[in-house]
């Protein structure tokens, strides 16, 4: 049998929290699932985060067991560092061509001991830490990566061979090439996730050139236990910030950016981060500049009220402009709506509460319809929110609309349920 041909019941595209949940729900029902992830590790955006709202549970503590469960489930085959190239219909099945990108490390031999990483002389900005720290050209993606396998970034590699000599398992292989895998399934779940709106999109906010203006995801990393500095420091000069401000709707509800919708998560993650900062830096002043606080979910408004009670300052007004003073302190210019007056206020650090945009356009590969803003569209969102216009292809999580973790998990289970019903129908209950 050809090793590059796989048959399964369902394909789940995307190894973030939604994809993992869908895969687990299907696998638990006895279906054979293949999970494809474009990055070297599963975990998605959630593994980068610090804590979840409104319970303030640790994100790693929720995500890591899920990643392990996926990796060790008898009915799930995880294909990391892979991309789906095309989908064809054959005899009523979906046939997916999947490109396996080369790790330059033998997946069967590597033990994840990191000896290669320690000897690698090349440092490049770490995308996982949003360029706030460095990583090696060959490395295990992050400490809780699943699978725990090294990956070599050939773009930055100088082929010095140190890693190959250091590897006790002789797993480094510079001659690896990409290859294709053919996968036959009866159902597909798309969980391709989101991207944050770019930090440099607004020139009024310094177009990404201000030293101490970061975005919400960067603050997540600063607050995470595995973060780049293991504490909250401003990236411009490493100073401990005494005054931190959040600029809400920095990438949502803004027609000049083409993102006129509300991203739904920014109010809550900003409030959550503000609370965590209040714990990490008890003396710091924390301000949120907002247009409206949208705390709509279960327990969310209580969470907001707690933040107010903790002394976090909420100021109604959209920040129009951010500049920088001679000490690299960001200065906001805002109309205080409640007072009808324009003020300029200096902070040590600003966090832009950026919004959510789709990460991936599934149109060409999967031929599913997308809506005005590029999120995958359901033909009947009120009846079956995870269906697409193609029978057998389901969509879930932030790929379908901006949503938080709680909603993503619910949506993932819904998509798994839809996919299971579809499998039942086409396979005739075998």
């Amino acid at each position, binding site marked *: 049998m050809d090793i590059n041909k796989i048959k399964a019941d369902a394909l789940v595209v995307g190894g973030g929290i939604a994809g993992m949940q869908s895969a687990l729900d299907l696998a638990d029902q006895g279906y054979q699932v293949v999970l494809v992830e474009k990055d070297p590790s599963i975990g998605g955006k959630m593994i980068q985060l610090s804590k979840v709202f409104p319970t303030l549970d640790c994100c790693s503590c929720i995500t890591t067991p899920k990643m392990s469960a996926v990796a060790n489930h008898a009915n799930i085959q995880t294909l990391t560092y892979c991309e789906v190239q095309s989908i064809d219909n054959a005899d009523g099945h979906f046939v997916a061509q999947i490109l396996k990108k080369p790790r330059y490390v033998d997946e069967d031999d590597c033990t994840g001991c990191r000896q290669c990483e320690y000897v690698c002389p090349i440092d490049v900005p770490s995308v996982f830490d949003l360029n706030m720290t460095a990583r090696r050209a060959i490395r295990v993606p992050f400490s809780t990566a699943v699978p725990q396998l090294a990956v070599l970034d050939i773009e930055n590699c100088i082929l010095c061979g140190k890693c190959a000599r250091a590897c006790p398992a002789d797993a480094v292989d510079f001659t690896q090439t990409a290859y294709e895998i053919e996968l036959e399934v009866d159902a597909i779940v798309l969980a391709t996730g989101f991207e944050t709106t770019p930090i440099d999109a607004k*020139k*009024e906010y310094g177009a990404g050139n201000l030293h101490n203006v970061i975005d919400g995801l960067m603050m997540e990393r600063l607050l995470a236990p595995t973060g780049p500095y293991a504490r909250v420091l401003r990236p411009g000069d490493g100073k401990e910030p005494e005054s931190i401000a959040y600029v809400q*709707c920095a990438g949502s*509800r*803004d*027609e*000049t950016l083409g993102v*006129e919708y509300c991203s739904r998560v920014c109010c809550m993650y900003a409030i959550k981060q503000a609370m965590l900062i209040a714990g990490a830096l008890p003396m710091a002043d924390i301000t949120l500049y907002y*247009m409206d606080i949208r705390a709509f979910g279960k327990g969310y408004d209580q969470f907001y009220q707690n933040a107010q009670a903790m002394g976090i300052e909420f100021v109604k*007004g*959209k*920040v*129009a*402009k951010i500049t920088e003073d001679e000490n690299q302190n960001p200065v906001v*210019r*805002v*109309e*205080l*709506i409640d007072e*009808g*007056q*324009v003020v300029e206020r200096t902070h040590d650090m600003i966090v832009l509460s950026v919004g959510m945009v789709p990460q991936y356009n599934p149109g060409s590969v999967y031929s599913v319809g997308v809506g005005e803003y590029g999120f995958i569209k359901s033909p009947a969102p009120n009846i079956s929110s995870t269906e697409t216009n193609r029978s057998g292809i389901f969509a879930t999580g932030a790929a379908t609309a901006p949503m938080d973790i709680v909603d993503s998990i619910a949506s993932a289970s819904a998509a798994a349920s839809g996919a299971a019903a579809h499998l039942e129908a086409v396979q005739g209950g075998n």
Partner: protein
Amino acid sequence: MGTRIEPGLLYELKKYGAVGVEKCFNCGNCTAICPLTSDNYAFPRNMIRMVQIGNKEQLSQSLDPWLCYYCGDCSATCPREAEPGETMMAARRWLTAQYDWTGLASKFYTSKAWEFGSMILLGLLVVVIVALFSGPMVTEQVELNTFAPIHIVHLADWIMAGILLVFVGGNILKMYLSVMQPGKGPSIPLSVYIFEAWKPIYHGLLQKQWDVCVEEDVDNKELSQERIARITHLLLVSGYGLMLVLIIFFLQWFQTDNIYPFYHPQRWLGYYATVVLLWGAGYALWGRMKKEIQAHRFSHASDWIFPVLLLMVTLTGILQHIFRYLGMPLPTYYTYVLHLAFTAPMLILEVPFGKWAHLYYRPLAIYFQAVKEKAKEYKEAPAGALASAE
């Protein structure tokens, strides 16, 4: 005392060219991005709010629309694309109609038939008057003063100036009454009015406030669009200011059959004014056609008419000058009549009722604003002194 709400105010403003007002969700971005916003005035969100809730009384008393130079930053960065800058422009047109005691301005702004019809009628009237009162057309050589004797032209000028004075004077009085509300609130001493009297002249001639907008422009380049607009406007003001002085005090230089030498002020002052008027009118028209900068993206009919008239007045003036110097009698007389037929509507209709009214409303608004601020300082001073004494 309660405030009377007029729910129809938004729809009324739309007739004056307002767009997108209802899209605004009052985030305050426009007011905070505005380079002119200070402790004393915060716009344009307050304008939009007044229009949205229908606070006609407060809007009619507001000076803010005149203080804006339309750099367009508010509209360019508005997260709702609610075009706050256009609301300011519509409010200016609306206020012009509110100040106008004849009621004609509101007709001109809200009806194209009225606007174009009155322009054409007035132009034709000028032609008829010339036909009735002009002298013979000498065809052997150019004798403009025979065709249009200077004493008659002077008389006509003074009649026109009188009409303008009645219109404009009434408008200014009405603006003063609605903005300053004399008799209500604490009275402002006359000395404040006198001390601040330099401001309207200074700002009217130089538009110094505009420099604030230019310096805080979002893309602050050496020659930003904003700077070009500001310089063009200044040149334009110098051009028609000069032309006005020349025509009022030195009409005999222009209403003449003499050929002056090139170094004579009649020649080079006239040429300077002509060049900047052409450039200014051309810039406005070209810009409004290309729609590249915020201020040119939306054009109300009144935004077109003023530069078109200015361009036609200048062009017919140039042609008349060329024909006279070439010694072509009939073309000279005809272009002269055309020149008058464009000049009369430009002065009689644009100055009291049209876009050109900002010529005096804007400096006056700066004046009234300064007076109000000064009066407030006087009023607050003793209270402050009292507090420190305690």
